[in-house]
């Protein structure tokens, strides 16, 4: 049983089709997050002081640790994809497992951070901790963007788990473009966080 699927006549064409489709999808995802990132940049431009003060309330330790975790997970995912291409099944499985563990670690840390945020009344509802009205805007964006990103991480983890099971059962999965597509998706999730980190966590630290 090969990795070739209908309606493709060759694995090479199938791979090209999947890659193009995946990049088009990643483009739409990038546009979705770009709109939110742009709202954050515009907010910072229009309400500089309030956004800087609000940004200082985020936990830079959690933010930095999670950035390092996601960057490392991109490394292990890239190793897995490269190993699959080189037909190194064990290394590919190891890379996927490490990515899965790091992704779960990211979500666990994010959960702890959210719990602390709620404890410190940083949810922009009744009893919100900060006074400046625009700081509510910052934290509304903070919750929307981190939650939307976490949903993407979760979706990526599900894909990785599926790929691991398939790879463990059928060595032909090494040739499947689905593994490469999963890797591309995971890297996009990392790229989004690379921009969320400075915009949400680093603002107002120097002042």
């Amino acid at each position, binding site marked *: 049983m090969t990795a070739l699927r209908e309606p493709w006549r060759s694995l090479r064409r199938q791979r*090209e089709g999947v*890659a*193009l489709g995946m*990049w*088009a999808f*990643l*483009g*739409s995802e*990038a*546009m979705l997050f*770009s*709109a939110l990132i*742009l709202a954050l940049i*515009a907010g*910072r*431009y*229009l309400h500089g002081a309030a956004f800087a003060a609000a940004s200082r309330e985020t936990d*830079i330790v959690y933010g*930095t640790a999670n*950035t*390092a975790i996601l*960057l*490392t997970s*991109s*490394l292990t*995912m*890239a*190793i897995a*994809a*490269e*190993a699959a*291409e*080189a037909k*190194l099944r064990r*290394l590919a499985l190891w890379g996927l497992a490490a990515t899965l563990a790091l992704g779960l670690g990211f979500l666990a840390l994010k959960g702890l951070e959210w719990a602390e945020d709620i404890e410190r009344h940083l949810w922009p509802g009744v009893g919100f901790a900060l006074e400046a009205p625009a700081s509510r805007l910052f934290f509304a964006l903070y919750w929307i963007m981190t939650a939307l990103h976490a949903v993407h991480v979760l979706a990526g983890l599900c894909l990785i788990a599926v790929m691991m099971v398939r790879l463990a059962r059928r060595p032909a999965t090494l040739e499947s473009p689905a593994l490469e597509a999963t*890797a*591309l998706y995971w*890297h996009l999730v*990392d*790229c989004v966080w*690379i*921009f969320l*980190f*400075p*915009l949400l966590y*680093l*603002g107002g*630290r*120097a*002042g």
Partner: protein
Amino acid sequence: MSGLSEPRTIGGILRRMLITWVVLLALLGSTVVLAYVPLQGLNTAISIGIAGVKTVLVLWFFMELRRPDPLLRLAGAASLLWIGFLFGLVFFEIAWRVN
């Protein structure tokens, strides 16, 4: 798929990927340190610039955009173009807004 020499051994794969990863972590460290240094309002621009460099590294080395595949580069460039329109129009509106 390309004329690039792909590392086929475990050592070859790990070596190239680990170098990119070390650079990414170094950039992360520098962006955190620079966030605490007063740079006369340039902190945000610098941190976003470093994020841009990190993204290019991930795109180029981890997402294999360095492969000379015109179709993929076209798809990537089209997305960037539309994101450029989005940013350009919003910045234009803010810059010319009359209070």
